[in-house]
């Protein structure tokens, strides 16, 4: 598919990439509350649908928010996930995972005044316990809103490439 829309200019593009870097730094430092308060809009739809692996001649329609999904959260539900990590009773994150995020191929388009659709690739490298190493690659489709307090994401769709999950869980934010 050829993109007919025009990407945003250099300055905006740079601002969005910088925003993503700051977001990653908060997640890597386990500042989940700050991450939630800083970058998540109150009308967020945080979505990681399940894609089935099918033969080409056996195509299925793309998943919708009404289907089973790994994440399908609104603001309160995402907040509950953050709250849980901060209870001090989460065994899976004590000691915490060491997670690095690599965000590349950022493409941004203006879809409304101060609203942007942004595509990116994300590589998540998760190192846990003594010897557990998991690598996840995801395609990410964001809708960002530019506000007085920076960019806020109000729609995030995560397409994880693994069709059989190669990890104990997917309880990390992307």
């Amino acid at each position, binding site marked *: 598919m050829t993109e007919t829309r025009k990407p945003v200019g250099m300055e905006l593009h740079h601002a969005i990439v910088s925003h993503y870097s700051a977001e990653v730094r908060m997640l890597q430092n386990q500042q989940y509350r700050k991450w939630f308060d800083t970058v998540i809009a109150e009308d967020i739809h945080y979505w990681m649908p399940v894609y089935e692996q099918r033969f080409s001649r056996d195509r299925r329609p793309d998943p919708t928010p*009404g289907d*089973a999904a790994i994440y*399908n959260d609104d603001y309160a539900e995402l907040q509950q996930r953050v709250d849980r990590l901060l209870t001090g009773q989460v*065994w*899976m994150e004590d000691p915490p995972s060491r997670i690095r995020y690599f965000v590349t191929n950022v493409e941004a388009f203006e879809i409304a005044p101060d609203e942007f659709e942004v595509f990116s690739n994300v590589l998540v490298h998760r190192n846990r316990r003594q010897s557990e190493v998991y690598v996840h690659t995801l395609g990410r489709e964001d809708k960002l809103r530019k506000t007085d307090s920076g960019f806020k994401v109000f729609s995030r769709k995560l397409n994880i490439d693994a069709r059989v999950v190669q990890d104990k*869980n997917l*309880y990390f934010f992307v």
Partner: protein
Amino acid sequence: MPFDDLGLQFTMRHGHGFGVIDNAATAIHVKRDGYVNYLEETRGEIREKFGPERERLYVGHWNASIFPNCSFLYGTNTFKIWHPRGPHEIEVWTYTMVPKNADTETKRSIQREAIRSFGTAGTLESDDGENMSSATYSNNGIITRKGRMNSSMGKDREGPHPVYPGIVGVSFIGETSYRGFYRFWQEMLDAPDWAAIRANDDTWDAMWTNRNFWPDRLSAKQAEPQD
């Protein structure tokens, strides 16, 4: 024992078993109005058809296993098959169960809540998975392999029940169902063929020696002064 009379635990002839927490069917779900209403609207029919003892199970929360590799939580309604994938590997398939006659919106919210709690990124599943893999890892150690597992919790507070089949334990926190699971596993390993297993059909529960536990308990309860 803590939690006496707040639930029950069961084991069956062929290793299936479950624990039930009374009146807690939907407790794990956050958005649960539709499901709560559905159970309230249908529990009368269950009572009529199957009696109050089954109605009690219908509105309770179960953690259940069908021997040997299918587990489900009734109430939370997550359903898992554990597929062996060779040594040290297992692949888990997770499904959601919904009541066939519930309305579409209720079915959808049950599915969302089941996945939020016990799905791949579930708020409870993530911790449980850690426990299971850590337990497997540490039990592979040479010292642990020399020891014996203690699975005796609640072992004298269980027996045949006048209403329910199988062996019934008095508390939902206990190891009645684990003892039944491993009992049947051992029976399978020791048996040369199915005929040898069928030969045990009348004596399978002989290891539960406290045969009068339930009759005694129920008659003692009946003798208690009522408020």
